């Protein structure tokens, strides 16, 4: 009886996930396989075709690189910020958290646009540098991977701070006291106690940020342009401009595979740094 009730309770969500996620993903992946006599690689010939193109390999590598840098920079910036916030008295803590989260209230498109205004040829940064005389001609900062990285870090750091404040707050105070009573200074305590215990949170944050930046579309579209294409913009171009649905499905499947592989590697790494992390 209890088991039936359990199944009944779980069924709406299970049904929704099956209909809206599992089936479409399965259909998309199904679409990526070619006929068995389609070429030397058999049914995986479409994937071989993708990796045959130097352009497409570059898009994949660029996406990987950009997402990697965004993740690393967000981790570092988020950890430092969260460490400071977690150590504040309670009233100040809530204020700082609200301030950190404030940018999340605006959409990703709007926030990417803000960087368009800042980084453009006649943008505020160029205007300022020209006015001070530090440069003579405007720098071209837009439509570079750097611009995409800067904007994405700006978008994802609040998320990272939120995740890490929670994790750092949960590290018991007396572990740090024990560490200092055993002779570890503030830096040694941070490296040997706080950091390993924060690993589960760092992994959650890294996975969130890596996934979101690897698959992002709006920011690379606005700040990377068509010359600095990333997997998200490339997918859109394949599907909506070239109407090459099987090709777009291959791109989607490769993105999925990269993300799953990255998550697995990060979890493995986490377990080596902190055997308690799962």
């Amino acid at each position, binding site marked *: 009886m209890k088991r039936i009730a359990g199944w009944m309770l779980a069924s709406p969500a299970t049904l929704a996930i099956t209909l809206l996620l599992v089936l479409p993903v399965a259909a998309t992946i199904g679409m990526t396989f070619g006929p068995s006599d389609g070429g030397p690689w058999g049914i995986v010939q479409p994937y071989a075709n993708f990796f045959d193109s130097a352009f497409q390999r570059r898009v994949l590598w660029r996406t990987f690189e950009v997402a990697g840098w965004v993740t690393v920079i967000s981790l570092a910036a988020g950890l430092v910020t969260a460490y400071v916030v977690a150590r504040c008295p309670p009233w100040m803590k809530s204020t700082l958290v609200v301030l950190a989260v404030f940018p999340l209230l605006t959409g990703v498109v709007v926030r990417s646009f803000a960087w368009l205004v800042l980084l453009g040829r006649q943008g505020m940064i160029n205007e300022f540098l020209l006015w001070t005389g530090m440069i003579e001609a405007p720098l071209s900062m837009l439509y570079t991977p750097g611009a995409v990285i800067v904007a994405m870090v700006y978008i994802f750091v609040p998320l990272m701070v939120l995740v890490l404040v929670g994790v750092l707050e949960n590290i018991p105070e007396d572990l740090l*006291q*024990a560490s*200092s*009573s055993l*002779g*570890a*200074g503030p830096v040694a305590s941070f490296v040997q106690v706080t950091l390993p*215990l924060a*690993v589960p949170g760092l992994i959650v944050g890294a996975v969130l940020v890596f996934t979101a930046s690897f698959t992002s579309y709006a920011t690379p579209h606005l700040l990377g342009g068509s010359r600095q294409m990333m997997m998200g913009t490339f997918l859109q171009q394949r599907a909506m401009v070239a109407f090459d649905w099987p090709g777009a499905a291959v791109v989607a499947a490769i993105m999925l595979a990269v993300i799953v592989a990255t998550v697995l590697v990060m979890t493995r790494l986490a377990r080596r740094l902190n055997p308690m992390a799962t």
Partner: protein
Amino acid sequence: MTLPLTIDAITAHYGTTKVLEDLSLSLAEGELVSLLGASGCGKTTTLRLVAGFLQPTSGRITLGSKDLTRLPAHQRDIGLVFQNYALFPHLTVRENVAFGLKQRKVATAERLKRADAMLDRVGLAHLADRLPAALSGGQKQRVALARALVIEPPLLMFDEPLSNLDAKLRVDMRVEIRQLQRANGTTALYVTHDQEEAFSISDRVAIMHQGRIMQLDTPEVLYQRPANAFVANFVGFENLIPLTVSARNGALVTAQTAEGAVLELSQDQLGPIPDRFTLATRPDGLVVTTDPAASGLPATLGLRTYLGRAYQYQAKAGGLSVVANSALSQPLDAGAAVRLTPNPEQCAILQPE
């Protein structure tokens, strides 16, 4: 290594609340002193001040010839055992024990050897490769003890180390703590709210109340000769009877309550008795007799409870409420008129405050 600890006129505040006032305490080399009191009495605050987790408003703390008062916690060289063990969950038992040696830049091979030797001493050598999560409470506390001892600190401090363990284990562990502390000859400060625990393992006990030490003495003196009403009450002298001496005859003293009830006491048994004093007695220290001619406090019995070895009576003696235990085989009913005679072995004389 062992050093004496001196806490000199320490005052401490949490925000604007004063939690310790002008507290002084000295521990001789190798001595184990307990701070005993209810929660909020300032015992843990004192320990945290010595550990360096809190800063005093005024006063000085010295360990041997080293002034600790403004020294950061990690330079104090004190072995600390926490109530909830505070083991590093991401390190194995061996790495936990070796942690302090690592901070002291002891070479890897040497520190693992010393950690293993210390684990052997606390009987946990076979668990060295486990993570703390896989240990029982008693095992965790042993690891915490080994971790504090392996750095050979001149001072050991314990913050309610046994309160998360079950009763049987508490007794075993406190014996073990005492043996290790004795064997190393390390000076130790031990914080607890458990009177039996404090009395059983300490050289001296400081009973604390509202940020002050009410009495600092050996357990025997505290138990038999409390210095004031607070300590008397704390160690189980539940009845406090104010008396005035009306006649002296050699060692024999006749004293009266405010209502005129007369008691006869012997200075041979109770020590010198001043003219005005308070007689403190345990419930066992008031003998219940139904003989109206006997000397003692006239009293009326109230509620009776059964303790197994005796009956306990709530009684009214004039304006005083007292508690008396009586091993009488026949229980007495509420309202019975009795005499309560002090048994000097369960009594103490308190000087007027």
